[in-house]
């Protein structure tokens, strides 16, 4: 532990302002980050019979429910795509967002015990949630590709869809979702630390948010004049874009994308700054 410069000096004083992020500390604790990712991933489905298979089963079951309720009963159109693929693609981005949001929004309260005893950059914990959920996302992507292959080559619907050339930008969309869920989650985490009301709200927020996002319906169902309103929801574009990239159907435009990315940046900045501010003394108020 003595790999410090000789003139190392840590100054503890009441912090002023919002912008002191201490990213160097974050970098020093990168090993902790990956151990936490490991912990989240390994411990999640311990003592279950199906184990990690749940990472795949969960979205499949949701897709099944969606297919029956929204596809067969409510008959919401799916842009002419096979409903199973449509919902799977929509859920891909959405469940990554929802799960990361849920684990980051509880960060401060859930770890109060640990945070009250030892210092490490608090941001490590929500970041680890972003990364461990990314692994789950990857597993779901593989599942999706299996279904994609089946429908493409072994069913009559195969002609109606295909990858779009834009798929090279896929990682950027994932990055946007990661940033957005982190930002929103951090905001809520800071609010929850102060007002416990938000513990109960976060479940509703995520439910309502899903219906405001084109997961179970295509954006093309919204009248053109109103689409910009839907796009104000920063999750709209990422979900729609993923569908467009993987299935070739979807409403995507440069203005919409710019708006969505701008909203994401705003959320992320707010989240990190508020979290950073609250994190320093929140232990006095939990």
């Amino acid at each position, binding site marked *: *532990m*003595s790999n*410090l410069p000789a003139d*190392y*000096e*840590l*100054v*503890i*004083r*009441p*912090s002023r302002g919002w912008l002191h992020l201490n990213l160097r500390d974050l970098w*020093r*604790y990168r*090993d*902790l980050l990956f*151990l*936490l990712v*490991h*912990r989240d991933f*390994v*411990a999640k489905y*311990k*003592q279950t019979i199906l184990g990690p298979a749940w990472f795949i089963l969960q979205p499949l079951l949701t897709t099944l429910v969606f297919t029956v309720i929204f596809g067969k009963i409510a008959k919401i159109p799916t842009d002419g795509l096979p409903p199973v693929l449509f919902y799977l693609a929509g859920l891909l981005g959405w469940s990554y967002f929802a799960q990361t949001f849920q684990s980051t929004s509880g960060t401060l309260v859930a770890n109060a*015990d*640990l*945070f*009250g*005893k*030892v*210092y*490490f950059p608090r941001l490590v914990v929500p970041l680890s949630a972003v990364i461990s959920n990314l692994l789950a996302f990857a597993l779901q992507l593989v599942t999706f590709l299996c279904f994609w292959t089946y429908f493409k080559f072994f069913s009559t619907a195969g002609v109606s869809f295909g990858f779009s050339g834009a798929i090279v930008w896929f990682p950027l969309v994932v990055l946007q979702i990661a940033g957005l869920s982190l930002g929103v989650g951090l905001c809520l985490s800071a609010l929850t630390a*102060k*007002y*416990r*009301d938000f513990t109960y709200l976060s479940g509703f927020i995520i439910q309502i948010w899903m219906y405001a996002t084109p997961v179970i319906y295509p954006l093309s169902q919204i009248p053109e004049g109103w689409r910009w309103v839907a796009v104000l929801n920063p999750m709209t574009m990422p979900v729609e874009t993923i569908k467009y990239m993987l299935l070739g159907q979807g409403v995507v435009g440069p203005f919409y994308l710019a708006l969505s990315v701008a909203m994401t940046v705003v959320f992320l900045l707010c989240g990190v700054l508020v979290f950073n501010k609250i994190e*320093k*003394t929140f*232990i*006095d*108020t*939990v």
Partner: protein
Amino acid sequence: MTRPIIEVDNVSKRYRLGQFNARTLREEAERLFRRRRSNGKAGGSPGDHESEFWALKEVSFSVQQGEVIGIIGRNGAGKSTLLKILSRVTEPTSGLIRIRGRVASLLEVGTGFHPELTGRENIYLNGAILGMNRAEIKSKFDEIVAFAEVEKFLDTPVKRYSSGMYVRLAFAVAAHLEPDILIVDEVLAVGDAEFQKKCLGKMRAVASGLGRTVVFVSHNLQAVSTLCERVFLLEQGKLANAGPADDVLRSYITGLQPGVEDFRVTTPLLRWRGLQNRRSLDDLRCDQDLMLELGFETGQESISNLHVDIELVDERDRTALHCKSKFVREPMSIPSNTNFAVRYLLHSPHLAPGPYRLTVYAAAGTKELCWVEQIDACRVSAASPFFPDDVLQDVKGTTVPGFSVDLVPSTSSEYVEVS
């Protein structure tokens, strides 16, 4: 002299008391509304100041590298707050601290362990939480496992561990941190006596062998006096005394008032070892003699003019009896470094049924040496001394003396008339 490794300059910490902590949105809104209204009138709301509390007030001190510092004080004196600020868990309200080295806190045992992960995984995780990187943990891994004695269970989830194994593993990880500054807060309150000894030994080795600085907070004055060179005494958030361990401890003990929450105060001069015949004191009948053998150990100096007092307290915190050795005998003299016992023999004290706790107080002349409260002392059974098959029930007093009840002839003349 080199620059101090820890410099604490005028540090204060304010807490807001009461409802602030668990305030909901509605309360916050109401408060805003109230404040605005009262601002309209003269003055403004005084309520905000009433609920303030300074856990630390203008505390300043410095610590040199390699020193072992003890911080003592009653509950609520600000010890934990100071440690929290030093370990960067929270920020001071004002003041400044400079720390020239890496700090690690010895956690409350097992904080940060994940029950589903194996011992091996938890060593890495816990080490990283405490600030080690993977390479450092790897190089210490075998030592940690050996210290904790959990070789066989490395790949078992820690939720299957016995509590003893859990504690050992947690301490082992922390003990091998090798930071420049180690902060220890009351962790020694857990674990069996042997393990505690091992922990103290490890801490001593860390301090003396490797030139590390240790800041140790404890109620266990015995441990403080053996480990620490210098002691800071906090009182109501202020630094009340600082200096060589023995001096500060002695003045602290003399200043203690009865009824404080700390229930064990011992000096290096006289150490309380325990009630050496405790086993024979369960299931005592109320008219039996009560024998208490109080075990002590003297330190580096011999003691003369020693007297030892006891007090027995019942379940409801009432004093049942109070005896002083000077009532019945001359003061005692004990050579240095000696184990000895003082035997109190109470002739059929007739205690009411129930458990009793003991307070032991020892002093040489007027100099207080040892004060131990809340010792589990004895249990008096409900068996009646009067009728072998009966039991004593609903006794309100603290004693049931031997007594008789007889019918006597009426003498009429002795009545005092109530007019």
